[in-house]
């Protein structure tokens, strides 16, 4: 048989099998080794996709040291063999021609000189050694779990500071604070199985048809099988998701709080709330009048009802622009006990100066109506990065956290961490590290003015493109003489500002573990070698830590004098800081097993590493029972969650009121910090597109994706374009009080913003929209709002701006 016929046979077998799985709506085990038998000229292994937080698994085909094929993993419960267009092309992300392959140090004249890894590690160690308290580490939800754990340990255990943050602060911090405020513990109670059981799916400022297409296709598949599912899209612009929805509720930016309150108001007024569920499992909270906290203060049911009284459908219509009849429709659905309602959200609710509040309110509507704890009844936040949950939220690579959901502010949590890391008492600083915006503010401020961070190491992220108000929060550092170290795989706006550039291995060029949006921890092995001298981020961290150890830096020793990342095999130390020996042991496994010991305090139990090797991910808590490891689909529910006591039914065992109750919150609607006015009359919303992943540093190197969506644009309403006198494709100037860009107009393109608002995706480094965005952030999560600020728009060469 010809090789091409061979390949076509595999492709048809994969597609036919996917048809069957989709038709059945479930995963059927494939015959073991089926890929190997049909494709015997290469090698196949499983890995989670490199891109978003859905956590699809792929089978990666390799041949002669290269990734040559990708297949949706038929055994993966998340994607059932399907892929989105980014996952389909994920293998090509490794092979852009400008991969970084050598460490490079900036010369005084601004050019770069190639240096050795030994020299690079020395440079970093010297910077840290000189002023450890002025060093900050910034990573992302693309750090693998071991990478994030190593970075956090190096900073918190080794340097004795908490100056570590991750870009997940910019994308899901408000989801985390929402969960903490309501349930006392982070991450969703439900999972993707809810999408297979709901009758009603509500997308709150969320566009899963483009951003989480494989999950969205699960719901659409059910529809195509004849199931009746009502899709309700609540948004500020029409998207591809809207096209599939029976109801579209378009609200004025920032007024989603009023909508949630309007639903609660009607549930109370019509007495359609679930009194039995509420009395058994819920308590009520509001913010303190003075010095509000994430925990808030207890209020009575009557007080809660009194505060909700003003949110009549008519009042909500006045605030939000959503017709009162649509508020009544939503409340009517929530008031029906026999429906199963799933809410999904992502950046629209999280990138919000009231992000914690709107998260808490959506959870509260579900609790108040009893739409919680049954398959299909769940409020669930989605994540944009592959391990925002697994690494940032669970490992705790943030200034206020310690591994396993512990907090720097709690002395007992510091003591537990010191014990687990075998550190002398008091090694971990009691001072919370700066959150991302604050960290970059200090890095971009002169030392004399309080800018006390002078060296920053960035791994696996691109803040040069993604920090809001980028001129103020990224661009100033270089002129101030600050020192920026960047580990990455391709040149980016961040590497271009760097003093030291380190080439990194990516995805299947290294071992890794991710944790997706539904608490699923995933594992993969290195399959191909990275190009040139590119090396694992985790190795880079350990190598710097070891250099400091060798120089006598006390923090890099535990209380027995051993190196913090001491690794033994057969009783002898393995020099994992020497890259020639890094793969002599499985460093990922060693770090993960150490990290596992942190995971139980918040009942986020993880299985041994070997269990993840065998599985397509497992959802925590994973507990051992009858000699086998079992994952958990639904938390807080008896019979599903192993930590719910028998007879309890539902038990919120991390309740902030310490009585197994979840908190139903009241938060008032408040206007946003910046709104359109006479000078800047348009709303600007930023976001993503189907073809490109976040800042585009990988997907813009994948030719088909780049050609499909070659550059950014400003999406504009037709009436606004007419008023401005601009044509489709014409370049306009979009400017805010912070910056401006020239960008082509797309009139009612893929999305349709209402009059008076525009949308710009952020994937294109040549059109850096974050020069315009606002750094204002949520008071609890510290997450900035990329979804709304005021801009004006004019034709290139024209003065002034047309009012919408």
């Amino acid at each position: 048989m010809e090789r091409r016929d061979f390949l076509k046979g595999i492709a048809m077998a994969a597609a036919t099998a996917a048809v069957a799985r989709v038709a059945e709506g479930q995963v059927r085990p494939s015959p073991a080794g089926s890929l190997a038998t049909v494709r015997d000229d290469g090698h196949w292994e499983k890995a989670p996709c490199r891109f978003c937080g859905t956590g699809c698994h792929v089978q990666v085909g390799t041949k002669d040291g290269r990734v040559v094929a990708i297949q949706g993993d038929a055994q993966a419960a998340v994607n059932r063999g399907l892929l989105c267009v980014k996952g389909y092309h994920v293998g090509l992300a490794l092979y852009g021609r400008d991969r970084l392959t050598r460490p490079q140090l900036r010369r005084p004249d601004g050019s770069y000189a190639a240096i050795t890894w030994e020299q690079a590690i020395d440079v970093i160690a010297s910077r840290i050694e000189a002023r450890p308290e002025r060093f900050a580490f910034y990573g992302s939800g693309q750090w693998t779990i071991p990478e994030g754990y190593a970075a956090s340990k190096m900073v918190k255990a080794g340097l004795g500071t908490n100056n570590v943050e991750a870009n997940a602060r910019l994308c899901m911090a408000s989801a985390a604070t929402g969960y903490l405020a309501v349930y006392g513990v982070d991450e969703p109670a439900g999972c993707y199985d809810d999408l297979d059981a709901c009758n009603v799916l509500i997308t709150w400022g969320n566009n899963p048809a483009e951003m989480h297409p494989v999950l969205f296709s699960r719901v659409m598949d059910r529809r195509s099988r004849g199931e009746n599912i009502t899709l309700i899209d609540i948004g500020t612009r029409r998207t591809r998701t809207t096209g599939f929805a029976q109801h579209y509720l378009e609200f004025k930016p920032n007024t989603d709080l009023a909508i949630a309150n309007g639903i609660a108001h009607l549930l109370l007024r019509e007495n359609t709330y679930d009194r039995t569920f509420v009395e058994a499992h819920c308590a009520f909270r509001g913010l303190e009048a003075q010095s509000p906290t994430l925990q808030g203060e207890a209020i009575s049911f009557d007080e809660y009802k009194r505060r909700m009284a003003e949110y009549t459908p008519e009042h909500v219509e006045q605030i939000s622009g959503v017709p009162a009849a649509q508020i009544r429709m939503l409340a009517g659905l929530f008031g029906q006990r026999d429906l199963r309602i799933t809410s999904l959200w992502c950046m629209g609710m999280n990138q919000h100066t009231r992000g914690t509040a709107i998260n808490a309110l959506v959870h509260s509507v579900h609790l108040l109506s009893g739409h919680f704890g049954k398959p299909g009844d769940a409020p669930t936040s989605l994540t944009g990065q592959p391990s925002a949950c697994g690494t940032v939220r669970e490992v705790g690579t943030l200034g206020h956290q310690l591994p396993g959901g512990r907090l720097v502010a709690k002395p007992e949590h510091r003591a537990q961490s010191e014990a687990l890391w075998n550190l002398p008492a008091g090694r971990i600083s009691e001072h919370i590290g700066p959150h991302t915006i604050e960290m970059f503010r200090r890095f971009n401020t002169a030392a004399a003015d309080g800018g006390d961070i002078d060296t920053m190491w960035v791994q696996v992220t691109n803040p040069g493109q993604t920090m809001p108000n980028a001129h103020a929060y990224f661009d100033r550092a270089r002129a101030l003489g600050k020192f920026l170290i960047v580990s990455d795989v391709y040149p980016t706006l961040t590497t271009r500002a760097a003093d030291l550039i380190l080439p990194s291995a990516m995805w299947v060029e290294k071992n890794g573990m991710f944790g997706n949006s539904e608490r699923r921890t995933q594992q993969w092995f290195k399959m191909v070698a990275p190009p040139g001298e590119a090396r694992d981020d985790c190795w880079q961290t350990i190598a710097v830590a070891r250099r400091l150890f060798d120089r006598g830096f006390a923090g890099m020793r535990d209380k027995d004098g051993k190196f913090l990342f001491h690794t033994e095999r057969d009783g002898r130390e393995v020099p994992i800081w020497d890259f020639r020996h890094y793969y002599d042991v499985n460093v990922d496994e060693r770090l993960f097993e150490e990290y596992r010991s942190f995971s139980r305090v918040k009942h986020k139990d993880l299985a041994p590493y070997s269990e993840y090797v065998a599985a397509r991910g497992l959802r925590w808590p994973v507990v051992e029972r009858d000699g086998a490891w079992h994952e958990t689909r639904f938390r807080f529910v008896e019979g599903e969650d192993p930590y719910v006591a028998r007879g309890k039914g539902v038990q919120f065992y991390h309740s902030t009121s310490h009585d197994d109750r979840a908190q139903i919150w009241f938060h008032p609607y408040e206007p946003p910090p910046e709104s359109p006015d006479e000078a800047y009359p348009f709303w600007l919303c930023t976001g993503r597109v189907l073809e490109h992943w976040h800042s585009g540093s990988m997907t813009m190197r994948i030719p088909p994706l780049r050609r499909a969506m070659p550059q950014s644009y400003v999406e504009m309403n037709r009436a606004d374009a007419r008023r401005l006198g601009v044509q489709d494709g014409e370049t306009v100037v979009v400017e805010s009080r912070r910056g401006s860009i020239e960008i082509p107009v797309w009139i009612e393109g893929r999305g349709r913003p209402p009059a008076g608002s525009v949308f710009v995706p952020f994937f294109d480094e040549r059109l850096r929209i974050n020069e315009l965005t606002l750094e204002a952030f949520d008071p609890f999560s510290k997450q900035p709002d990329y979804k709304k600020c005021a801009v004006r728009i004019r034709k290139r060469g024209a003065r002034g701006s047309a009012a919408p």
Partner: protein
Amino acid sequence: MPVSGMVLVLSDEPAVRDSALEALEREPGLTLGQRVGDRLPLVAETSSTPTCMALLERLATIEGVRAVLPVFHDFSDEPGDGQEERLDGAS
């Protein structure tokens, strides 16, 4: 020449679905599999990955095709380095 496997979701209206199937049969480089309800497995051979992406987009615009779900992609014949210009325009 990349080889792709995909699943098309077709309209559940028989006349529209039949019209889509006719259009698909006219597409060069496609091998249609056995339809199950509104799902059609197919294999596409294209000259390059960009052509493949263009095909995905074109298939999605055929009346009666509601969604295109990719499942398999072999690009072992594709060139690696040098397949795309640098973002910053440098050579």
